[in-house]
């Protein structure tokens, strides 16, 4: 018999159980009792669809148990980390007629339900012999373990189910067909590869062996594995109809399932079952699972297609020596340009020294805001004035424009041949920290360091020297406010000796 667990109850008859944070009675383990394999598989199918098997697989045990009435049932025992996990498992197990228990070791008591939200506790423990004692509100029964059913065995021994329809929902999307696997018999491998190569389908192939079986007359099976990319629909239909060729779709990292079939369990949720170094090939037609000991090294398909090689076709290669190419130099010429594009903004001017006085006078007429943008460098050819925003305010000297950044050419001139700005900059040796100036009639370009430039206003004005002056003594300085401090000097022993109010007689 069971009794309801009360809130804040701390003592229980069931061994190994305790209330969790919510007050729900929970043991270290939870047990699900299924009366048949179908229900057991159904439970795992639903579980895999909703969540990952990782929650259960840690300490999952599936036991085939036998009741005292010799009925065979399946008992699933897993680690009850939280009551939330057990709640979920109980809900799914109830869909397949499963019963949920909690406890640890041998004794498992019925898990909570709507009638008793905090769970149940037994009034008296059963003394029956058996491996498991399950306490339900309708029965209390002990079970004996018959055998264990590993979960991976459950995965590999379940047959694939045929999907109705054509390609099925698994390949309805284009993205699902980006990578497919072709499992072909070794004799068909070359033909399939040639067919793919001719139709320009990208593919990689490998020949894998499933390993020898224990039978005397059964040798190792060889499979041709071809990974194809973006397989056209017509080929997909074609390969599905060719005997000896199976089209597989990848599931997870190291599983393939034949197209048109599906595994009863959702294999993506059972990733922990599969060894990462192996390749699992689930074949629906053959109703078999091929396990490749390791992922085969894939080779591009075109390398595997032979076209007949003859070592005597060509003579030995002739050795050749490299030689420096002949340098071609073309000199740049500065020529007047009539093209409209050659007339750019005037950003510099070279004022000869003969016009320097004019510049000085002009500066007084220019607004200070305009002068602030001008910089000037004094060179032998004259005063070179640069204004980033233009030197429109200085109608003096030879006007210059920028042929390339920091490279100035006379206005209305261009280089022949026309070279790009990058080439021009490269040919003059770069413009980092300097300006390059091409003067008409000059022998070559002039390089002006940035340090030569200074603001035009400061440069144009003559230095003013202030003549020091001294204070005129005709105006006397103000009286210094010196405080007066009384200092008491040493007085004689009789300080008032000799004081008189009358003058001497």
């Amino acid at each position, binding site marked *: 018999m069971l009794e309801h667990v009360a809130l804040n109850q701390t003592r229980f008859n069931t061994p190994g159980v305790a209330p969790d944070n919510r007050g729900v009675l929970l043991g270290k383990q939870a047990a699900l009792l299924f009366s048949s394999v179908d229900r057991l598989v159904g439970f795992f199918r639903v579980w895999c669809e909703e969540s990952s098997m990782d929650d259960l697989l840690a300490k999952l045990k599936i036991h085939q148990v036998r009741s005292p009435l010799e009925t065979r049932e399946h008992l699933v025992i897993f680690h009850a980390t939280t009551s939330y996990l057990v709640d979920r498992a109980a809900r799914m197990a109830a869909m397949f007629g499963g019963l949920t228990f909690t406890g640890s070791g041998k004794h498992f008591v019925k898990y909570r339900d709507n009638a008793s939200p905090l769970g149940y506790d037994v009034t008296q423990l059963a003394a029956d012999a058996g491996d498991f004692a399950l306490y339900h509100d309708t029965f209390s029964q002990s079970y004996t373990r018959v055998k264990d059913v590993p979960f991976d065995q459950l995965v590999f021994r379940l047959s694939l189910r045929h999907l109705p329809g054509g390609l099925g929902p698994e390949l309805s999307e284009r993205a699902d067909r980006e990578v497919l696997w072709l499992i072909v018999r070794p004799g068909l491998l070359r033909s399939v590869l040639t067919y793919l190569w001719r139709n320009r389908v990208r593919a990689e192939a490998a020949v894998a062996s499933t390993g020898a079986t224990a039978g005397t007359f059964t040798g190792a099976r060889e499979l041709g594995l071809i990974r194809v990319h973006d397989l056209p629909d017509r080929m997909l239909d074609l390969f599905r109809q060719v005997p000896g060729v199976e089209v597989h779709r990848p599931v997870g990292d190291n599983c393939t399932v034949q197209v048109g079939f599906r595994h009863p369990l959702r294999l993506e949720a059972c990733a922990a079952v599969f060894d990462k170094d192996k390749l699992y090939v689930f074949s629906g037609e053959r109703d078999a699972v091929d396990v490749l000991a390791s992922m085969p090294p894939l080779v591009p398909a075109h390398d595997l297609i032979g076209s007949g090689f003859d070592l005597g076709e060509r003579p030995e290669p002739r050795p050749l020596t490299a030689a420096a190419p002949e340098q071609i130099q073309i000199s740049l010429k500065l020529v007047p340009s009539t093209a409209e594009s050659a007339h750019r903004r005037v950003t510099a001017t070279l004022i000869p020294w003969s016009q320097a006085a004019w510049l000085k006078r002009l500066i007084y007429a220019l607004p200070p805001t305009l002068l602030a943008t001008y910089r000037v460098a004094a060179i032998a050819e004259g005063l070179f004035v640069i204004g980033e925003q233009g030197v429109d305010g200085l109608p003096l000297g030879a006007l210059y424009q920028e042929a390339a950044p920091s490279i100035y050419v006379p206005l209305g001139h261009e280089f022949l041949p026309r070279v790009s700005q990058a080439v021009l900059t490269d040919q003059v040796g770069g413009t980092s920290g300097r300006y390059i100036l091409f003067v008409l009639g000059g022998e070559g370009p002039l390089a002006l360091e940035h340090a030569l430039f200074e603001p035009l206003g400061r440069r144009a004005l003559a230095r003013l020297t202030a003549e020091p002056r001294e204070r005129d003594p005709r105006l*006397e300085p103000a*009286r*210094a*406010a*010196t*405080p*007066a*401090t*009384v*200092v*008491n*000097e*040493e*007085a*004689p*022993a*009789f*300080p*008032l*000796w*000799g*004081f*008189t*109010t*009358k*003058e*001497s*007689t």
Partner: protein
Amino acid sequence: MSREQKRLPAGEPLLPTWLHEFVLPLVAGGDVRVSRVFGAVELRRLEDEAFTMESDERALALAEARQEVMAELLIDPAPPALDDEAIRLALAVQTMLFFGHPAATAATVRKSRLREVAAWTQEQLAALMPAEGPTQLAARHSILHHLFDLGRDDVRVSFWAGRREFRGQEPPARLLAWQRVRRVREERWRTSIVGEALGDPLARGLLDALLVASPLTDLLSPTRTEPPLDLARLAPHLANAAIARAVCDRWLTLGLGEVGGPLVGALFRLYDQRGQRAAARTATALACHLVLLWLFARPTAPDPVRVASEMQVLGATRPGLRDLFGLFVAAQRFDLGAPPDLARDARLRAPLDACLKACRQIVGPERITEIEGAIARGVDAPLKLAAQA
């Protein structure tokens, strides 16, 4: 040879040393050395030597120093002569300072002897003729202009066995030796001579006599607590334009907020005195003139709104100044508040009206009525009912 003649160095002139050690520092600043008092004999010698001294370096330096002080009050004053007035004023100061000398409390000095010295010195000051004219007032003030900021550096040395105090003297080196072993601690402070003199009846008498002898010194230090400003005695000098100008300049330099309280207090004391009608009128007019100067003596034309806000702040922070504002308003009823021709200039009339309006708001009508009553009592003029209408 008399006793006092034995005490004085017979062949050595007294005046140069005295000028160098006492009078010149008293005027120009520095260490004013005091060790004794002068009596009638020394006074006579000083006067004689001053009369016969020609182009002495110290006398010239003193004259220049006094001229500099006078130049701050008058336009282009001549170097004052070292006359009997200057000598007696300086001598009186020396005597007052001697009363604070440690020797004055020595066992060898009798109180009666000190009273005798004080009485004789006051007699010498009282014998001075009343000062007439700004030059004479400024000349006397040039001797005493440091009177109220004259100070003395006192030292107290504490050590393991006790403590000793030195007034205006440096402690001997032996007392400061082995500071750590003897746990020597030095405390220094500056003592105001006037503040100390106020606590000594003999020195207080001399201080009063000095202020009577130099009215300008009295007028130019209105912010002192004691002795109080006696406008009954000083008001006649304020009738002189040069003196009134110098006094107003000094008072505005000190700040209306600082001067307002003591000035109004002196005015109310004056109003309570009988027979001081003229002095009361003069002093009242000068107080109003001071307010007008504060109002108009600005780099730019006074803004009525700004003036009103300034007065509100001053009235809130300086309670004594509120009575001055009230007196300024009340004096308008007695034609003492402003020159009659002020109303002719509209640029001056507008700020003046704003000032009067602000004064009425700050002081309140009740207090203004009280002040009007005080003024009426002082200037001996009945309140005109017609003025209210």
